[in-house]
């Protein structure tokens, strides 16, 4: 593995191991790292998140387009390996010994303690991504309508995202 790919692997491994509560909490850090290292632009980072939402499987597959932006197909594989392999190994080890662990109150205490931090970090991620991705009125309207749609209806996520894409094309065409 070259130095560049090793960097991608190590960064996403670190972020994966810090991503309690689903993975979105580390988006702000991921954005800073990916942009700071010159792997992606602000716009590409948000595009990568959108691609991840359109991809079947775990919602955190947004690491794949981010790795792709860093180093092409090998970068995508390195990012996915870094993000899923260490956390998957921990998960496998944990479920194998869970019979003993689950009798303890401490896992619950740790989980309960980390969730609020993860929630705050999620808003931090939205703030940092929104500053770049929602700079024009059209994007702001599309994002607001999408949020309200998810809140008020049970519309499937891919459908709402596609409608957002069509709206984006129409707004630009006017």
């Amino acid at each position: 593995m070259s130095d560049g790919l090793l960097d991608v692997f190590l960064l996403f491994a670190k972020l994966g191991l810090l991503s309690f509560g689903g993975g979105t909490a580390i988006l702000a850090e991921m954005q800073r790292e990916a942009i700071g290292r010159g792997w992606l632009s602000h716009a590409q980072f948000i595009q990568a998140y959108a691609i991840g939402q359109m991809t079947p499987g775990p919602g955190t597959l947004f690491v794949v387009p981010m790795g792709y932006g860093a180093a092409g197909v090998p970068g995508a594989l390195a990012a996915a390996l870094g993000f899923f392999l260490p956390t998957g190994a921990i998960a496998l080890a944990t479920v194998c010994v869970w019979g003993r662990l689950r009798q303890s109150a401490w896992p619950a205490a740790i989980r309960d303690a980390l969730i609020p931090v993860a929630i705050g970090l999620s808003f931090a991620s939205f703030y940092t991504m929104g500053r770049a991705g929602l700079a024009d009125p059209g994007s702001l309207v599309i994002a607001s309508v999408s949020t309200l749609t998810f809140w008020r209806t049970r519309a499937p996520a891919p459908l709402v995202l596609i409608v957002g894409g069509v709206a984006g094309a129409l707004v630009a065409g006017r």
Partner: protein
Amino acid sequence: MAQREPPGQLVISRVHLGPTAFGGESVRPVCRETRLALPAGGQAQASIADAPRAHGRFAPPSVTLPQLLGVFFCLDCTSIGGRSASYLLSELVQRRGWLRRDDWLEGHLLGRVLPGPSGVGSGMFLAHLLGGPIAAALAMTLYVVPGLLIGIVLSSLIYGFDRPLWVDSAIHGLSASALGLFLYQSLRNASTSAKVRFGPVAAVAAFVAHGLLELDLVLVMASLGLVLVLLNRPAAHHEEQAR
């Protein structure tokens, strides 16, 4: 599935009801099916301590490895938009009846405890119940790989070629819509912080520290997490309940 669940294993009285979600995964359909008395639009929320502790007393049906892997492969090909725990519930519990609802609940909560994607942790737990550690590892591989390949193809289409302006605009709109989805998920999760002592304070502090002040992620998580663990350690929690 109801008749397969031994009575009293899902401790309903310990499930908190309120307008929140399991860490962002809506469980409204679950609550409706188990006929929990929910407020209008309400959802159930539980901590891992509420998870049933009896999966050892339940023998999952005999599921062959190819069957199990086939299900996880199909799940990966169809579960667009994240929320994989909901897909696992639908397929393994509601449709096939391979596991009980409380198995799913335990796995889901376990997935929230572990670092990394919550769907991977919960999926591994469920696959482990059905087929052991090798099945869990293989199932999770199949759960991730097809999406990984699709992600690479989509990335190459978007990053790799010159595009007409309208395609860029469409991607821009799609990205804005994805940010709307992200905001929705964050808002849905926000009230979960209230169940922990000083949770809302910690959530705001994390936002300010990492979002506004741009402090290091590890520093923020370690310091705030440590303080919250100490404030909510099991002994302290029990003392407060006793008072």
